[in-house]
């Protein structure tokens, strides 16, 4: 999908302020806590993935930052403006939210849906903007179809086009590739990349961890409280020790003597027979030394491999820890 070309809209506000920030933000519905103690800062043009299990408070966080809900406590800035009721209209002018459900007027055509929202955002040269949004999601040839006649994936694309109409500074995307086929999903990814290059800040709520890993500069994991936020590789290092896995034909007689003298190796354990997991400071630096030590010890080496933990491993580890600790 082609990115739209205009510069993100809106003016005024504090340009030095982060595009999006929250400070101990909390939302409760009566005694039920939707999310609590959420603190983060997101820079302009950053793509941040927002992950968490169902019911973790992701959608409520987005709705709160999008001025649909009033926070119970804490503060936030959105598109350079403080999140207050007085700033609600101006914030909504500068941001866009693509909800999980497209929420289109099914009796109206694609064009009529977009024209309505272009007028609600008071975009100048509305028909040009609508055309560009349609082209960006490859739906120009379906402009006159009623939305009710479109497939789920196409409706999702119309919702995405609608979210692009006002050239938002901050774009909240809730499961943007849900229901899309792999080609269409890749097109949405390309579109997000294009928006990132134009300086649009994107807050991407998703359950697809591969999508988050591929697209996001940083990811935040929410499970009622914000469990962590950082670059995917940082999170991997935080959660998992860096390891080398050594497999040999037979057990090594004195592993302590072989491994612990090697620079960069902090410890080792036997994972299974003749398989050793070495905790290292840097796998790339430690691997040559380990290889030499194994050769010196006359060990018959089958393989030496650096461990690889995906974002999914990080996510599952954190959520499992929460479950074991009895956190919501």
């Amino acid at each position, binding site marked *: 999908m082609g990115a739209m070309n205009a510069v993100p809209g809106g003016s005024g506000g504090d340009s030095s302020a982060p595009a999006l920030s929250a400070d101990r933000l909390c939302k409760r519905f009566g005694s039920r806590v939707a999310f609590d103690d959420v603190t983060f800062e997101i820079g302009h043009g950053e793509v941040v993935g927002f992950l968490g299990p169902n019911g973790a408070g992701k959608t409520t966080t987005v709705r709160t930052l999008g001025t649909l809900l009033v926070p119970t406590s804490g503060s936030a800035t959105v598109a350079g403006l403080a999140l207050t009721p007085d700033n609600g209209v101006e914030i909504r002018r500068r941001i866009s939210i693509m909800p999980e459900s497209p929420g289109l007027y099914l009796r109206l055509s694609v064009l*009529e849906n977009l024209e309505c929202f272009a007028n609600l955002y008071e975009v100048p040269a509305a028909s040009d903007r609508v055309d560009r949004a349609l082209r960006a999601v490859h739906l120009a040839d379906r402009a006159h179809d009623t939305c009710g006649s479109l497939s789920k994936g196409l409706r999702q694309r119309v919702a995405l086009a609608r979210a692009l109409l006002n050239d938002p500074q901050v774009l909240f995307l809730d499961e943007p590739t849900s229901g899309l086929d792999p080609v269409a999903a890749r097109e949405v990814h390309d579109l997000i990349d294009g928006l990132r290059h134009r300086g649009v800040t994107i807050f991407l709520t998703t359950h697809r961890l591969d999508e988050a890993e591929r697209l996001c500069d940083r990811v935040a994991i929410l499970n009622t409280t914000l469990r962590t936020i950082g670059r995917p590789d940082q999170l991997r290092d935080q959660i998992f020790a860096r390891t080398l896995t050594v497999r040999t034909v037979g057990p090594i007689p004195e592993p302590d003597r072989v491994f612990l003298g090697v620079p960069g190796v902090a410890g080792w354990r036997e994972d299974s027979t003749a398989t050793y997991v070495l905790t290292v400071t840097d796998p790339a630096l430690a691997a040559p030394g380990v290889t030499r030590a194994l050769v010196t010890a006359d060990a018959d080496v089958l393989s030496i491999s650096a461990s690889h933990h995906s974002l999914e491993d990080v996510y599952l580890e954190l959520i499992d820890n929460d479950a074991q600790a009895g956190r919501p």
Partner: protein
Amino acid sequence: MSVNRRLVRAIVDKELREFRRNRYLVFGMAIIPVVFSIQPLITVFALSSSESAPLRHEHVLLYMLGIPALVPSLVAAYSVVGEREQGTLEPLLITPIRREELLLGKALATFVPSVAVAFGVYGLFLACVEFFAQPSVAAALIRPSDLLAQLLFTPLLAGWSIWIAIVISTRANDVRVAQQLATLASLPSVALTTLIALNAIDASLTTAVVAAAALLLLNRIGWRVASAVFDRERLITGTK
């Protein structure tokens, strides 16, 4: 508070397009005027010239004011809860439109076709009376004061009925419940116009001026009340 006309117009245009393509709503708007017109027409056609004298002291045609009181309630009751059921309310609330503008747009979109239907049916009714009833009956029924009352009270009653229905629509969780309650809520207005039509309430100039002023005020208050009870949070999350 200043109203952004472009935003209000965007809502009006969208609503009117949706109404045109929602045959159930169109049917709902059409059925009430038909019910209101047929029976009185049959009665009027059956009247002989000798029966026209008592009609001069009544305001039978004010009975038709029941149309603007009833017709818009059905459509206006759908306005907010219908959007909520369709899942279209959240995208709408994400835009910069204020709730006052959103509700004004929705009210105007209901007001325009409702008043057009009410005047259209009234005009048709008058034409039928003029051409097919006994001339003395027609002369007794069609009086300038009643025509003026119809012109004045049709929009005022429609507006009042719309605001009541919108208030109900913002609080209801189900379209059918909202429509039933809105219809019920418009019945006092219908009862009042019927009592005036039957001369149970004296329809003097003073009564008309006071009623018009009261309805004008109620319309203004209705907009404020509807805006006040329009709670984004409850509408989005269903809580509170």
